[in-house]
C-alpha cells in the first residue's frame, strides 16, 4: 500500500503556517525599524539617564559632556536674551537646578510652574544646557 498521505502536508495546514510566518517576519522587521529609529533621534529621551543631582551639586564640572534628562517644574526664569535664549530654574528632586535653554529651542512657550522633561548636556562650565524638552 502506498504511503501517500504521510509525505505531503495538507494545503489547509500550510496556508496558516505561511501566514503566521509572514506575520512574524513583518513584526520583526517593523520592530527593528522602530528600535533603530529611536536610537538615532536626538530628541528622544530613550536611554538617557537621569542626572545625579548630588554629584552635580558637588562637582558639576566632572559631568561635562554628559547628557542627562531631568524632569521638573519650572521654578523661575532667571534671564532671557533673544540671541542666547533663557536660563531657567527647574525644581528637580527637591533642588533648584539652573538650565539654559538655547534660543533655537526656546521658541516653545515655557511657563513658570509647568513641568517639563529636559534632555540636558553638561557644558564646559558645568552648566546644564537643554538639548530638547517636552512638556509633561
Amino acid at each position, binding site marked *: 500500500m502506498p504511503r501517500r498521505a504521510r509525505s505531503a502536508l495538507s494545503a489547509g495546514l500550510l496556508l496558516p503556517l505561511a501566514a503566521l510566518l509572514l506575520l512574524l517576519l513583518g513584526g520583526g522587521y517593523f520592530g527593528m525599524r522602530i528600535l533603530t529609529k529611536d536610537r538615532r533621534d536626538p530628541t528622544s529621551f530613550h536611554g538617557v539617564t537621569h542626572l545625579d543631582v548630588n554629584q552635580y*551639586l558637588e562637582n*558639576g564640572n566632572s559631568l561635562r559632556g554628559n547628557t542627562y534628562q531631568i524632569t521638573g517644574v519650572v521654578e523661575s526664569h532667571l*534671564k*532671557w*536674551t533673544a540671541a542666547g*535664549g533663557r536660563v531657567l530654574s527647574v525644581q528637580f528632586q527637591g533642588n*533648584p*537646578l*539652573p538650565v*539654559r535653554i538655547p534660543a533655537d529651542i526656546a521658541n516653545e512657550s515655557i511657563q513658570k510652574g509647568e513641568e517639563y522633561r529636559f534632555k540636558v548636556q553638561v557644558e564646559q562650565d558645568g552648566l546644564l544646557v537643554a538639548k530638547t524638552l517636552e512638556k509633561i
Partner: protein
Amino acid sequence: MNPPFSAFRLPLRTFALPVFLAAASSTPGQVYTGEDAAPPPAAPNPPSAQASQPSSAGNRGLLGFDLPFLDPGSDIASWDGKAWNIANNRILQARFEKYLNAPEDDSEVDRAYREALDAILEALSPRRQGGPSLSRATALMERAATFEIDARLCDSLLNAVYGVWLSERNVSSLQAANRELTNELRQANWNVEVASERSRLSPPPRNSGGGDQPEGGRGGQTAGDDSSTESGGSQSMQEATRLGTYLAQVAEIHALRTKNKAEMAVAAFQQKVEFQSLIAQFFLQRRFEHVVIACRLYRKLFDDGDGQLQLEKGSEAAKMFRTSLGVNPTINTLDSFANEAIRDVDEGVQSFLYLVERDELDSASKRLAEAFAVGEYLPRVRTLPREEKRKVVGFVRNANQLISALEVKDYGLAGELVERLRREAVDFDYSKANAAVQAAKTVSDMHIQQALLAARKSDDAAVQDNLRKAMEAYPTNPKLQEISSLIVGANDIQGQALSDLDRLISEGNYRTIYKDQARFIAASVAEPRRQEQLREILGNLRRIDVGIEQASRLAETGNREAAWEILERLFDEFPDDKELSARRSDLTTEVAGFVRALRTAKSLEERRQTGSSLAWYLKARQLFPGSEYASDGIQRIVDTVLPDDPPLAGAGTSGETSPLD
C-alpha cells in the same frame, strides 16, 4: 575811698595858684630878662612824676610857657610835659611817713634859729620904731644863715642884697661919670660956638680961578695978594678942622652919657628881676618865712614903688595871674600868699591835734598831711611833738598800703586793710575802697565761672579770654589758682587720654575706645588728626552696633537668615570686631543650611564651576528668598553665562525675565 595822703589835695588846691606861680617864677627864665638875657638855667625837675605823659612842649621854653598846673577835678598836676597824681605820690608819702617818725625840732639851736628869723622880720617890719633897718636885718641874716636848718637861704638873700648894693654903687659911679660928661659937653659946646664964630669973622677966600672976575681987576693984583690969599685959605682950613673936632667931641659925649644912662637902667632892672626870682624860688621851696623877709627887703632896696613881677609876656604864669587876679602879680601878692600859707599851716596843725584827741585818725592824718605838704619847714610843723604824730603813723601806713594794694589790684589784701582801717579810725570812709574791692572780686569771679563753662564746652578761645579778663580784674584772685590747677590737671588727663587713644588704635581695640568715647572726644579737642581717627572709629562702631541690634530683632522674629546677612555684611567690612564676630557665629549655627549653600556657591563660583555654583545660589535663595547674597550671586553668574544682547537699533531687549513670564 579817701587815701590818707589825699590830704595833699586840699592844701595844694588851696595854694595851687601861689605855689605854681612860685614854681613858674622860680627861675630867671620865667621872669622877663630882656632880649639879651642869658638862657635860663635848667630848673629842678618836680619831685616825682608817677605818671608821665608825652610832652607837648616841644621846643617851648621850660619856664616860658610850661607853667605847673593842677587839675582840681582829677588831682593831676602837670609840669614840663609830665603829670602825676598829687594824692598818690610815692615820694610825698615817704616824706610824710618820715616826718611822722622824726623827732620834733625843739632843740636850742632850732629855737635860736626861729628867734633869729623872728628878729629879722621884726627888723624889717614897717611897724618898727624908726622904720625898717636894713643893716640890722642883714646882720641877723648873717647869723641865721649859719644854722643848718636854714640851708643857707639867708646867705643867698644876703648875696642878693649885696648884689643890689653893688648895682647901686655902679649906678652912682655912672651918675658921677655922666655929671663929668655933662661938664665936658658944656666945654665942648663952648668950643664949637667959638670956632664957629671965628670961622664967620675971617675973610672968605678969593676965588683965583673964577671966570667972573674982570680981567682989569685981576691985573691989579700982585704977588702979595697971592700970598695973603694963601694964608687966608690956610687959616680957614684950620678953623674948620677945629670946629669938626669939637663937634665930634660933643657927639662922643652924648653917646657916652646915653650909654651910661642905659647901663644904669639895665642894672636896676636886672637887680629887681634877680631879687624877684629869689623870692619866687623861696616860695616854690615853701620857705614862706624867707619869702616874707625877702619881700620886705625888696621894698626896702627898691623904694621906687615898682613891685610888679616881671613875667614874660604871653607866658602861662602871666595868663594865670591875669585870669585869676585880673592884674599883674606883685611882690605884695607873694607876700600875702606866704603869710596865708603860714596861717593855714598853723590852723591845720591845730586841727590835727584836736582830731587826734577824738581818735578821728583819718581826718587827723589828712589835716597833718596838708599842713606838712605846705609848711614842711614852718616852725608849727617842725615843732609838732613826735608822740602826737605817732598816733597816726599806723593809720597812714596802712592807708598807704591800701593804696598800693588797690594799685596792684591785690583786692584780697585791700579788703583786709579796709577792715583794719575801719577798726583803727572811726571816721575812715571805707565805702569807696570796699566797693572797688567787691566789684573787682565779683567781676573776676564771674569771668572765672564763664571760663569754666567754656572749658566744659571745649571752647578754648572763650576759656582764654575769660581767664585773661578775670586776671585783669583781680590778678591775685585765689580762684585763679584753683582754676589753673584744674586746667593743669585737665591737661594731664588730656595727655593720658590721648596716649590711651593712640595705644588702643594701634591695638585695634576700638570697642574700648567706643566705651570711653567721652573721655577721648574731650581729650582730642585740639587734635584734628586724632579727631578724624576717633570720628571714623566711633562711626564704624555705631554702624556695627546698629547692625547687631537690627539683626537681633530680625532673629527674634524668626528671620534669622536676614539677620545673618546683616551681620555677614558688617563682618566683611569689620572682621576684627569681636562682638560682631560672636553674634555672627551664633547666627551661622542657627542658619547653617543657608550659610552652607551660600558659602558652597561662593566657593564653586571661585573655582569657575558655574553650573554648580548657580545651583547652590538657587538653593540658598530657596532657603531664604530675600537673600541678597543669593540674588547677587545668581545675577552675577547668569550675566556671565547669558550675556546681554548687543544693543541694536529697533532690536528687542533682553532682561532677567522672559517675555514668556
